[in-house]
Structures are given as C-alpha cells and as structure tokens.
C-alpha cells in the first residue's frame, strides 16, 4: 500500500530483462566480452588521440532483428594549437 516501497510492475522487469538477454543470445556478446572490447578500443584509440576513458560508451543498438555495435567516444579538447 505504501507508494514509496511499491515495486516496479513485473511486466516491465520482464521486458527489460528480455531486451538484454535477447541481445546477448543473438550476438554471442556477453557483458564481459563487451567490457573487454571496450578496454581494447580505449587502449588503441588512446595511442593516437586523447580521450577520456570514463566518457566512452559502447553498446549494442538494434533495429528490428539486426544488431549494431555503437561506440560513442568523445575526444578531449586539444590545447596544442592555442
């Protein structure tokens, strides 16, 4: 009865959990593989250009039944020329 402690509806939990499970079932990319991939990408890109590792976002986007790996990697502002 207390709204403060009201739990999230079970159907939305089901949907959220399925969204994650299906991505991994379809692509064979587990969260730990994705993390390893992210670390490798950060290391490789950092050798060429300055980035903030904490700002890097790597995830799987899906459109219908096809999946895409999407990386958003903000570059750090360069102060060299000014």
């Amino acid at each position: 009865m207390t709204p403060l402690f009201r739990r999230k509806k079970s159907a939305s939990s089901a949907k959220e959990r399925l969204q994650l499970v299906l991505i991994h079932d379809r692509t064979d990319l587990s969260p730990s593989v994705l993390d390893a991939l992210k670390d490798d990408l950060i290391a490789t890109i950092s050798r060429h250009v300055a980035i903030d590792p904490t700002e890097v976002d790597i995830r799987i986007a899906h459109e219908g039944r096809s999946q895409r790996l999407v990386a958003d990697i903000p570059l750090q502002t360069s102060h060299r020329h000014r």
Partner: protein
Amino acid sequence: MTAKIITITSGKGGVGKTTAVANIAVSLAARGQKVVCIDGDIGLRNLDVVLGLENRIVYDLVDVIEGRCRLRQAMIRDKRLPELHLIPAAQTRDKSAVSPSDMIRLGDELREECDWVIIDSPAGIERGFRNAIAAADKVLVMTNPEVSAVRDADRVVGLLDADEKGPASLIINRLNITMVKRGDMLAVEDVLELLAIELIGIVPEDEGVIVASNRGTPLALDPKSRAGLAFQNIARRILGEEIPFLDLENHNLLQRIFTGRKTT
C-alpha cells in the same frame, strides 16, 4: 491442387502448438479447404487425442516414410469435417526414424492431395524441429507472453532466418488481459517489439482449451469460444483475409466508450 505447407513451432514446449494446429486445421476445413495435419512429434504424439481421432489410427508417419503403407492409408479422415485429415506420429519410434529429406518428399506428395498441410513441430531445436520445418513454405512461431517462451521463440526465429525459412509470423497464445492491465504480463506490443516479427494471431487464455482437449473436440468448432474465435481468425488471415487484431481489447474499448469509464 498445390497445397501450401505451414509449420507451427515454438522452441519451448507447452506453449500450445498442438492446440493451435488442431484449431487452425479445423477452422480451415470448416471453410471448405482440404487440410492434412501432420503430427511431427514422433514418440510423443498428441495431435490425435486433441483432435479426438486416437481410436482410428492404423498407420502413422513413419509407416508412410518407410513404405509400409500408401500415403492415403495413413490419412485419417475426420468424420465431423470431411475435409480434415490427420497423419499421426509414430508412438514407439523416435525422431531419428525421419529425416528432413523424407519430410520434403512427403510434402511434395501431399501438395497434390490437398489445399493445406499443417505440421505440428515438437519442442526443441534439434532433429524433430529440423524435420518439421524442412518442407514448410511458411513457419508460424508460437509463444506465450512470458520470459522463457519469448526467449526461446527469439532463438527459433533466428534459426529460421539462418535457414532461409523466414520471415516467420508470430502467434501469441494464452494472453491474459487482466494480468496485462495489472502490469503483470507482457503486452502484445512488448512481445512484438522484442521479437520484431510480423503478428498473425493473438489467442486469449481460455479454460475451454482444456475442456476441449478433454473431449477431443477442438474449440474452433464452438462458436462461443473466444480462443476458438482467435484461431478461426488466424485461419482466415492464412487464407488472405484482412481481420483486425485484438477482438478482446476491442471488446473492452467498446465497453469503455459505452460506460464512459475505465473497465478492468
């Protein structure tokens, strides 16, 4: 005659494939279509009891494939619906008694015999599933609005795509509107968004399904049954008719309009 071959599969067991095959076959036959349904679940046959034809089995699918009888001898004709026929599964053999190429050959032979062949796939994604989809022109994937059934359906949809048997169409079975409204069951839109395939039917949860299987009289023969009506609508969509979805929600929508308040 050149029949179209439709297979109903699901990955997970117990979602209602056999009930769907029986009711869609009955609905097509009631519309004058000549239908042959095949029980693909060798060793665990059930389509015969759901259709109420268990006492009339002489030959089965494996007898046809191994040449112990002619195709027509294994086709049991339903006395209520003369256009409906069943080829039962063998009960004392296993899936390895049949191969996908056997099924393709049988399918080609059946195409000349009827308008529709409806194959009841066993659960799982192994040999029995491979056999059941081998000859299919169209595959219908069945799921329940429940996590494990949706996950398994997604796996099957992926396998069908890889096998160039797609795009599959989806039947959502055992939808409980009260639970959906309470937020305790995935809604039709949720399942469609997750699986991203075309919808061909929504079947409400209905106690009548058990009563019908007790009697061996498929629901689609009962004009008052909501699940029976949903299966008839699927059959009509298979025949190319445009039938709007969600009679169950339309019903509530009308109620809302007439009473001017939210119904439960």
